[in-house]
Every structure is written in C-alpha cells, then in structure tokens.
C-alpha cells in the first residue's frame, strides 16, 4: 500500500499533464459528438449516436477517406524505399561525402511545412511556374501538376520530398546499432556486399521499418497542410472534404458544425488506431 502511493507521486505529474492534454480533449470530443447544436435556431440537443450514423453514411467522408487511403498505399512504400536506399548508401562507407548527402537529404525536413508547400506551389504553377517553363520548352501543355488527376501525385511528391530524410535518419540510426562483429563474421564467411545487406542489415532494420511505417500511416491519414495550402492555387480541385482532416476542419470552422466535426475526428482516429495497431502486430510477429 505504502509502495503504491510512492509510485503515484512519481507518476502523478506526468499523469496530470497527460490527462489534461490527451484524455480531456478526447473525452470532450466524445461528449461533443453526442450532441447536435444548431448554429442559428434550435439550440443544443442530445442525439446519441446519430452523428456516428451520419458519418458512416456520409459519402463525402468516405470519399476523403479513400483518397488518403490510396495516397497511403502508393506514397508510403515509395517514400520508405527511397529512404531505405539512401540510408543503406550512406551506411555503406563507399560513398564519398556521406555526411554531406545525409544533411542534404535531411534538409527538406527542416524547411517549415507551410514554406515547403508554398515553394512547390510556385514550381507547380502552369501559368508562370517551373511547370509553365517546361511546357514552353517542350512546346506542350501536358504538364499540369495542379489539375484534377495530377493533384494527388503532386501532393505525394511534396510529402515524399519532405519526409524521405526524416525516415532515412530513422533507418540510418538503426543501422549504426548493428555490432561490428556481425559485419566481420559476414566478411569472414565471404559474403558479398549485397548479401550482407540482405542477411545482416535488413533484419536489423525491421523494427525501424515498422515504426516508420506506423508514423507514415498516421501522417497520411492526417494529411492537411499540403492540400489546404495548395487549395488557394486550385480551389476547384481540392474540395473542402479533400482529406478527412480538412473535412473536420471545414465542418467546424466554415460550417460551425462542431458536433459533426468531432464525430468525424473520432471515427477517423479509431480507424487510424486500428490500422496502426494491425501494422504493429504484424510487424512484431514477423520479427519473432
């Protein structure tokens, strides 16, 4: 009993902050999601799970969900493979100026996200941007990164550019923890460089890959900054419900539908949690 209280004293400060900043907002969002307040007339009424039923039947929500899902399925593997190749190259000790490449690849991550998107917006502009210059050079009008079908790949390109360096660093630091003896043993066994990668380095990276994948999945589902900023350049392509987060944001700040917005956020949070959990389970099981 005595021991228990002592423990609580140590954990207390953390728990207090955790409860205040994590549990309370989630609790409040759940509370909000059970009501429906009319911004103009009619006041606030308890509606039980009605909002959830509406979200499940909301084609806008599912459209935005499927959009980020397809984004995730394509962008995350591309980004992680690029990051992996970069990490292996830098770790290989055959690269001249490895630390230079490491910092250059990492640099985009240090650029504030909003600035990065604005910069890419200028590059993508097909009236005056780099895209326009390329079109002029080639005498074509084919390059339109901000048009309907190109938009999602264009956003994926920005996100990849931003986060390859970050993921590379995760992989690279995992590679640095591989004991030197393993490489020596591989060398004595006459393993080629590629064979060393397959038999020593990749297994050592598994944990890092699982972590990076989970981060990337969460990041993809929370996609917001990039489309929200590009929206000013392509308002008709990027709708107010382009991604689930944008949908929640616009519901609450343009439509004053706070309750429904909270419901969208919770449903999206649960879906994200489930998918991330499955990935984590699968990742750790394979590691065993």
């Amino acid at each position, binding site marked *: 009993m005595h021991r228990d209280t002592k423990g609580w004293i140590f954990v207390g400060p953390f728990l207090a902050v955790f409860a205040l*900043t*994590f549990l309370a*907002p*989630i609790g*409040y*969002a759940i509370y909000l999601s059970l009501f429906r307040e*009319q*911004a*103009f*007339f*009619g006041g*606030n009424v308890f509606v039980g799970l009605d909002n959830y039923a509406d979200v499940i039947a909301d084609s806008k929500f599912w459209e935005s969900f499927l959009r980020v899902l397809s984004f995730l399925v394509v962008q995350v593997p591309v980004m992680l493979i690029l990051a992996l190749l970069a990490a292996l190259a830098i770790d290989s000790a055959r690269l001249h100026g490895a630390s230079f490449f490491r910092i250059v690849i990492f640099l985009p991550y240090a650029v504030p*996200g909003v600035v990065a998107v604005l910069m890419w917006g*200028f590059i993508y502009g097909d*009236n*005056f941007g780099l895209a326009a210059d390329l079109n002029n050079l080639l005498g074509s009008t084919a390059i339109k990164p901000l048009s*309907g079908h190109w938009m999602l790949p264009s956003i994926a390109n920005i*996100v990849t550019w931003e*986060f390859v360096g*970050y993921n590379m660093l995760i992989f690279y630091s995992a590679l640095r923890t591989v004991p030197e003896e393993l490489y020596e043993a591989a060398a004595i066994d006459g393993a080629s460089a590629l064979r060393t990668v397959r038999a020593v380095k990749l297994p050592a990276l598994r944990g890092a890959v699982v*972590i990076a994948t*989970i*981060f*990337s999945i*969460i990041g993809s589902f*929370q*996609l*917001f*900054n*990039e489309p929200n900023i590009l929206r*000013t*350049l*392509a*308002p*008709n*392509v*990027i*709708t*107010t419900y382009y991604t689930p*987060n944008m949908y*929640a*944001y*616009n519901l*609450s*700040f*343009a*439509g*004053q539908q*706070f309750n429904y917005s*909270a419901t*969208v*956020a*919770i449903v*999206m*949070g*649960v879906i*994200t*949690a489930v998918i*991330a959990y499955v990935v*984590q389970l699968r990742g750790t099981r394979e590691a065993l």
Partner: protein
Amino acid sequence: MKTSHRHGLRRLVAVGAAVTAASVLLAACGGSDKTATSSGQAQGSPDAVNAALEKGGTITYWSWTPSAEAQVKAFEQAYPNVKVNYVNAGTGNDQYTKLQNVIKAGSGAPDVAQIEYQALPQFALPGSLVDLRQYGFDSFQSAYTPSTWTAVHAGDGLFGLPQDSGPMALFYNKEVFDKYGLTVPKTWDEYVAQAKKLHTADPKKYLTNDTGDAGFATSMIWQAGGKPFSTSGKNVTINLQDAGTQKWTGVWNQLVTGGLLANIPGWSDEWFKALGDGTIASLSVGAWMPGVLESSVKGGAGKWRVAPLPSYDGQPATAENGGSTESVLKQSANPALAAGFVRWLNHDGGVKPFLASGGFPSTTADLADPAFLDKKSTYFGGQQINQVLTSAAGSVVKDWSYLPFQLYANSIFGDTVGKSYQAKTDLDAGLKAWQDALVSYGNQQGFQVNG
C-alpha cells in the same frame, strides 16, 4: 498538421490519440451556450452615445482596412478619454473564424468589428450584433447610398454603418485592347465576342479570369436581376435557377465551356502577375480595385482604364461587389461607446482618413465632392475614374439580399459550382448542386428552407 504528428513518439504509446489534434481545436471553440451578455441589450439613446464618448473608456476594434491605424489615431485625438485597442485579426474569413469562435466561447469578442456586407446576416441574425437603431442611427439614412444602406440591415435591424462600397465596373487593359483591336463592350454579348477575338488572336491571352468565385458569381447574378436568396425570420428561400441567374449563366456558360477564361485564381501571385503583363485583359470588379491595382500591379501603370460594367441591354446596371461595415458586438461591455466609435468612423471624422488611403466611399456627400469626382488618376493614364465609379454607385440593381449563412455558402462554392468550372461544363448544374447543399445545411441549422 502532418509535420507535427508524423513523428510524435507518444503516438506509438497511445495511437488512439490521433483524434487529439482535432479535438484540441474543437475544445478551444466549443463553449456550450450562446447567452448574450445582458449589458449589450441595455436600452440606448443618441444622448447615451455622446455621454459615453465624453466619459471615455477602452474598446477593442478588429479590422483589416489599411486605414484603420490612421483612423484610430485621429479618433483618439478627437476623444482623448477613449482608448481604442486596434487589432488586425486577419482578412475576411480568417477574422470571421476568430470572431465566430469568441462569440461561441461567450467572451473575448471585440467591441467593434469590420464585417463585409455579405457576412453581416450571418452575425446579425443569430443575435451577435447590436441593433444601432436604439442610438438613433437610423436617422443617418440619407448620408449613404441606397445599396449600402440596405446592406447594413438584416431583417428590420440596423447592424452597422457602411464603411465603403464596391459598385462593379469594367477595368480593362487599354494597351491589350488597342493591340488586338478590341472594343470596350457595352453589353455582355459584345463582351463574349471580344473574349473570343482576343483568345483566338493570342491563345495565351484571356479577356478575364474566373476559376469560380462565390463573391463574383453572386454579384453577377445580382446585376442580372436575380434574387436567389430571400430570408424572412426562420424561412429561407433559395432559387439558383431563377430568371436572373439563368440570364447570367446564359452568358457566362459561353466563356466557361468555350475555354475563354484564364484558369488563374483571383488574388494569387500568378493573378497579380497576369494583370500586369496583359495575360488577363479585363476584370469586372468592385470600385475598390484601383487601390489594389496601384499597390500590387505596378506593371500595369498607365495601361488600365475603367468603363461601366457591360449589361444585358446596354442600359446602366451594376451590382455591389465587396464592401464592409463596422458593427458593435453584443458582447461589448460598453456598447454606447462602441457605437460612438462606429458613428465617428463611418459618418464623421473617420471618412476622410479612409478616403486618403484609397478607399471608395459609401457616403453620398463624398461621392458628390468635386475634388473626389474630378481627380485624375495617373495609374489610369489621367482618366477621371471616379466619374465612372460614382455613376456606377447610382445604378446598383435594387432588392438584393445574401443568405443568412453566406460565409458557409461561399466556402462550399468550389465543391459544387467549382466542379462545373473545372470540367468546363454548364454552370447551371453546379449551381443546382450548390443549392441542394445549401438547402440541407440550412435545414440542419434550424431554418425552414425552400429550394
């Protein structure tokens, strides 16, 4: 959001916290009631305003007009007992979002805020603004143009005094017009013909740009005589297929489907560039545009001219495009003093500093002032542009009203009508989709919407 959440290690511990981001935001604005503070409902009178100005106090003022700082300084000189905290809380929607949040939170609102005419009903009808008739401000009617006076009303109430106005006119690049032998159009049919002529002569040039802009579309429907929105208490009628609306789409569809509109969103960097280098040869826009051109499109100096907006029958007819009022918030602890500030800003001493910063007035006396009327603008090649613009102020089509949830309506314009623009197809289909979305939103918010 992506940046900050992709890497939170804590996410791994509690993946469920993915919801947190959104819920924190929501928590910040989810105050549960909207009880108006009782002080805002106190009965006032013209004398109360004068007494409050004399007695003094402190008020907070939110505005994004470039002249705000000069106006506040001049006001504090005239009334040394009053201290005004001026805050630029963002332009347009950015400020409205903050304003809506503090109104919902029940505290933190400014005493006086700038609100565009199109946004006024959204704040006035739920009871967030003070009806200024109690201070006798309804006696100022003759000081303002009829269209702006109508615009500061919602229902019967008077919820602000007009700051400026934006009667629409045709701004055109004379250099481009001369080079390609275009004539300044008097009717929209002529306008379409010029658009074709220019784009055929040089496929890189367009008579105008339009990627779908709710403010522009509603103004154009207004000019065509459409009355798609009407509100009476809880009852709202939405009809975006009325004769006026179809008159506009009848013309504009030709430009949309013919690919005759530059795909450059307004107010983007590309837009300012295109206005300067002749890519966009004309704009149908409010009378506040000269100040914008002069400060942001330096390359167009000497090239631009102003003409009356084309109409359907060649007779003068125009609409308001933009323009703002200053309103007193219900949350204000000293509404009489706030009202006094508004009276000074838009009726008395504040008008001159506003005009000095390039604003276009809503006050009839200033519109008729020879010094204003006959001023030659060097940017416009010495043209007396105010002659054209003030005559536009007198030919605004009457009886227009915006929706009580116009800001929300504008926010989803791109989702609906924008799709027609993007696909270069019939705008009427997009307008119907917009209407359907607005009807269902209005009904959800407690209105009885017919549409």
